[in-house]
């Protein structure tokens, strides 16, 4: 019998016995091994028995034997790669995986090290190779010196070779979250400062992009959202998010900001920055950097570069963190999946509550000043930044703390982000470096950042610049096309439009304001509840503090934005209505709009009535379509009486047929609005009134119309005004031409 034949015979007998008498099978194999210690199959069979029985210690021993005695057997390598992949696998529930890990743990450390290194050598997939090396580095810190930096560089290289679109990719994740901490926390690894800055830059880019990733990438990688997500609402980490190439678990990063600040502090320590011992929060960091900024120009060359880097990276992180916090507060859907509990989006707008204020007082003060300001800005766009930001310091934002409990922190974040931004631009060298980093990261493509910057510009009162920024924003939003699908029907995606209207208003560009508002109206539907007013802030409080505020943070909902739109419209028409030139149309619009929040605009209404009295007559054919306010109706009924001054009122549609004709033909109006139109403008009725003549019938028609209007008093005013905006869009715009 040949040796080969003997071994086959022995293994065969053992194999036959495994089922019926395991002990005997093992005895056969022990004998066989003692006869042929150099035969691989005998030992592999022994290993297989122990492995199948999941006995970690004995299987480990046998694997070790094979690893030592048969280092070239492909079967051993297959086994080792199964084990190492079990080590990389992070699912805990798999019994087999757990066994293999336990098996590995029974091996002596140096053998583990050797195994991992050899397994790495045999691995040709960059990602797997990196994960394998990582296992090694984590277990055996002494290997970091030799393999750490090269692994890091390999990962960064792989990222560019594989043409990763996003900086949130598997290679970068491994580098930033796993390799980098090992490298920079290992005292035996010496790195030049330039490399440390490069790594810090990569880490910052990764974490910021990770935190601010948009939710649609999440839905791409997973079929359906688990309902279990609803169990832990406000936590983003509960959402499944998978970085391509990684498992779900390793795609989750807990406390990304903390990790990033940790890296910052370690890098700072290694680069010998001016640091305090002990943990500091970012507010402290910001203050400290402000101090450092004051004397940064005293340093030269290397020291200057060092402290410049310290300031830039420290402040940059504070900036992005706070800007992100602000944006995630005002537009949560940007970062949350569709199933996440909806937080109310917010929008920063120019305060327009002075629309109700008497035009005389205002005309001289506010608007002109603003116009002037805008004009000067246009001329000296760059140099006025300083002045404006200086001015901005005194600005106030109105918030409703009760309705928006998180708004205080939100404004804190906003403030810190703004201060950081200003600090980064306060010194040329900082500005240059910061701009370089932004270019590198392509921050101009970050929608969320654009949102923050726009709000900051609005806050600073640089409305011309804000308008440009908003157009930029719209372009970015367009490129985020899935977002549009996602947020369809919600007002949130028209945030930019609202702000645009607000900015044009602040610039005194009323026609454009009106145009934007009317565009916006098409996307809105009036809130259905009648309790709109009841839920609003009491006007008293508003007027009490009103003068102190320049801007306000409104919930970006129909309920909150629609009233704001009416205010804007009112403010636009108010000026024209009360000029010395007679403009009945504008005055009519104002009266319609004054119904909103009645009796807040009572003064203004009385002023309008005054003007009508002075004119002696008034023509506004939409009156009966849109005025349902009982006080107003009474007033107008009174005006026609002897006591009221016998004012000649042409409020019925037929009286101004010529004007009517210039308004859009019915066909252009959308079908859905037709039922709202009053019978008086339906064709048959129109014919009827035309043949009636003016003298006698008018009186009767007016009375009937009045009676009918009184019965409409209970109608939802928001609906009426919304229809007013939709139906009379062209007329309204013409008025402001």
């Amino acid at each position: 019998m040949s040796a080969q034949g003997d071994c086959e015979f022995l293994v065969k007998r053992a194999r036959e016995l495994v089922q019926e008498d395991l002990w005997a099978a093992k005895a056969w194999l022990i004998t066989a091994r003692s006869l042929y210690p150099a035969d691989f199959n005998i030992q592999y069979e022994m290993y297989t028995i122990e492995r199948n029985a999941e006995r970690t210690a004995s299987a480990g021993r046998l694997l070790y034997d094979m690893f030592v005695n048969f280092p070239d057997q492909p079967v051993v390598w297959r086994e080792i790669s199964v084990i190492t992949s079990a080590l990389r696998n992070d699912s805990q529930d798999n019994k087999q995986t757990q066994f293999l890990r336990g098996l590995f743990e029974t091996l002596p450390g140096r053998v583990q090290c050797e195994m991992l290194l050899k397994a790495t050598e045999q691995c040709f997939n960059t990602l797997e190779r990196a994960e394998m090396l990582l296992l090694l580095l984590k277990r055996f810190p002494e290997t970091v010196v030799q393999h750490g930096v090269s692994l890091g560089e390999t990962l960064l290289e792989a990222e560019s070779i594989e043409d990763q679109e996003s900086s949130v990719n598997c290679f970068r994740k491994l580098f930033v979250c796993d390799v980098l901490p090992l490298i920079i926390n290992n005292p035996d690894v010496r790195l030049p400062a330039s490399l440390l800055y490069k790594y810090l830059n990569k880490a910052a880019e990764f974490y910021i992009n990770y935190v601010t990733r948009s939710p649609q990438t999440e839905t791409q990688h997973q079929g359906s959202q688990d309902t279990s997500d609803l169990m832990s609402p406000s936590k983003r980490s509960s959402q499944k998010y998978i970085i391509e190439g990684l498992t779900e678990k390793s795609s989750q990063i807990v406390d990304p900001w903390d990790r990033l600040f940790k890296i910052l502090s370690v890098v700072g320590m290694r680069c010998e920055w001016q640091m305090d011992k002990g943990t500091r929060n970012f507010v402290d960091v910001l203050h400290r950097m402000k101090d450092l900024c004051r004397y940064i120009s005293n340093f030269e060359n290397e020291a200057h570069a060092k402290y410049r880097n310290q300031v830039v990276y420290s402040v940059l992180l504070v900036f992005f963190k706070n800007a992100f916090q602000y944006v995630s507060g005002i537009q949560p859907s940007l970062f949350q999946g569709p199933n996440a509990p909806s937080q109310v989006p917010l929008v920063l707008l120019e305060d327009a509550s002075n629309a109700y204020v008497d035009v005389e007082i205002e005309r001289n003060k506010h608007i002109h000043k603003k116009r002037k300001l805008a004009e000067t800005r246009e001329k000296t766009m760059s140099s006025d930044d300083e002045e404006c930001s200086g001015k901005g310091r005194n600005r106030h934002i109105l918030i409703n703390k009760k309705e928006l409990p998180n708004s205080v922190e939100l404004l804190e974040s906003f403030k810190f982000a703004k201060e950081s931004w200003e600090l980064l631009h306060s010194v040329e060298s900082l500005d240059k470096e910061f701009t370089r980093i932004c270019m590198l990261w392509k921050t101009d493509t970050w929608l969320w950042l654009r949102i923050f910057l726009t709000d900051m510009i609005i806050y600073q009162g640089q409305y011309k610049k804000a308008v440009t920024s908003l157009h930029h924003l719209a372009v970015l939003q367009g490129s985020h096309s899935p977002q549009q699908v996602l947020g369809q029907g919600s007002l949130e995606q028209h945030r930019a439009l609202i702000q645009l209207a607000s900015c044009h208003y602040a610039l005194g560009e009323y026609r454009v304001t009106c145009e934007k508002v009317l565009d916006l109206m098409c996307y809105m539907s009036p809130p259905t509840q009648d309790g709109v007013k009841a839920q609003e802030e009491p006007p008293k409080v508003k007027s009490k503090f009103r003068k102190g505020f320049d801007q306000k943070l409104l919930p970006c909902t129909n309920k909150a934005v629609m009233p704001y739109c009416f205010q804007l419209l009112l403010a636009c028409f108010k000026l024209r209505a009360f000029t010395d030139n007679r403009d009945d149309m504008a005055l009519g619009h104002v009266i319609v709009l004054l119904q909103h929040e009645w009796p807040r605009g009572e003064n203004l209404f009385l002023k309008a009535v005054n003007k009508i009295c002075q004119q002696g007559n008034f023509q506004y054919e939409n009156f009966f379509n849109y005025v349902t306010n009982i006080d107003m109706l009474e007033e107008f009924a009174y005006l026609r009486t002897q006591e009221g001054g016998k004012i000649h009122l042409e409020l019925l549609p037929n009286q101004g047929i010529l004007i009517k004709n210039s308004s859009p033909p019915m066909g252009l109006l959308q079908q859905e609005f037709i039922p709202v139109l009053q019978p008086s403008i339906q064709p048959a009725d129109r014919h009827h009134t035309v043949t009636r003549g003016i003298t006698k019938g008018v009186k009767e028609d007016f009375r009937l119309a009045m009676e009918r209007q009184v019965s409409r008093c209970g109608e939802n005013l928001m609906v009426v005004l919304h229809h007013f905006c939709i139906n009379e869009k062209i007329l309204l715009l013409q008025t402001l031409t």
Partner: protein
Amino acid sequence: MSDIRHSLLRRDALSAAKEVLYHLDIYLSSQLQNASLSVGDKGCTDLLEEFILQVPKERNCQPKRLNSLQELQLLEIMCNYFQEQSKDSVRQVMFSTIFSPQGNKADDSRITLLGKLVSMAVAVCRVPVLECAATWLQRTPAVYCVRLARTLVEDYCSLLPGSIHMLKQIFSTSSRFCCQFITAVTALYDLSSDDLIPPNDLLETVVSWIFEDPRLILIIFLNTPITANLPIGFLELTSITGLIRWCVKAPLAYKRRKKSSLANGATGTKMGKENALGVDNDCHTLYSKLHLSVLQVLILLQVHLTEKNLFGRLGLVLFDHVVSLVEEINRLSEELNPLNVAQEMELSLDRLAQALQVAMASGALLCSRENLRTVCSRLPHNNLLQLVISGPVQQPSHAALPPGFYPHIHTPPLAYPGLPAHPVQTFIPGMTFPYRPIH
């Protein structure tokens, strides 16, 4: 001395025994301190034999006999004495003075009393008594050791069913005693007749011990200074040979017992047959497990022999024993009709072949394959045995290993701090060990 004897004669038996024990303790202690270990005072041993072992001194002078209760009390006193005697040497000397056979007429009652004492110590976990008994088993001719073993087996396996668990715990109370006990029972039960098949409880107990820790049976070997010539007539250093005998002969011996019991019609009922079958099946598994454990012990042994620099110099499995084992198999084979026991014979010879091979490879059995061929020539044919006798086909030897040497990685975590003299790569899971580069 005779004064003492006279005063003792006047007392009742128990207090006299106590008194003798007391005197003996004082006497031996002072002897140890003076370091003048004389042959032992004749008077003292006489008193011991007369008053403790109850051997009549003179024909006409019958001392007061202990009744059963008093005997129990005496045993308890002795147990407590050994328990409380803090001096190891005094305890040892006392034990051997009382229980070492003297080759006189008192030996019989000496061994009987020892049996009762150790049995009690097993029941109440008296570690010092068991430790002394372990030493006694090493220094006493095997015939007496076997008697002690038989007493314990009778007490715990036959006399009081269900008390085996008490015996089981000696594994943890005194592993030295446990180890010696196994050697003694393998010497006692050699399966040469149906009566000398180990009782099932005993078998199960021994297997459970060894399976839990195979190193158990090496404890005496590892903790005894090795002399070149092992004394004859004493228990062997390990139970390996005895256990090999159990495993190899069991299939045939059980078959023989079954046959004779059928012939006697003892298990005539269907019920009895089924029971016997079930028990035999259990036994089959137990022997299979035991056999594997023995092989594993042999592999462990290789490491220890190497460490002690005894590899190839100390045969723990004697060739003579192999010869007699083979003869016994031949005898069994003749007794039974070979046609009816083909399966059993196959298993027996497989085990024999395995034990021989592993014992040779591990250095426990020192003989050439040529010798084996001669010894085994009369055995029925068996493939594995053939393979073992002719030895492995020579092949280009493995670079890293000397032929026939398997570097096993078990290491003894026992109280044996020998430095490895041979480059054996060993490790215990969870412990670091010096890293050796692999080429």
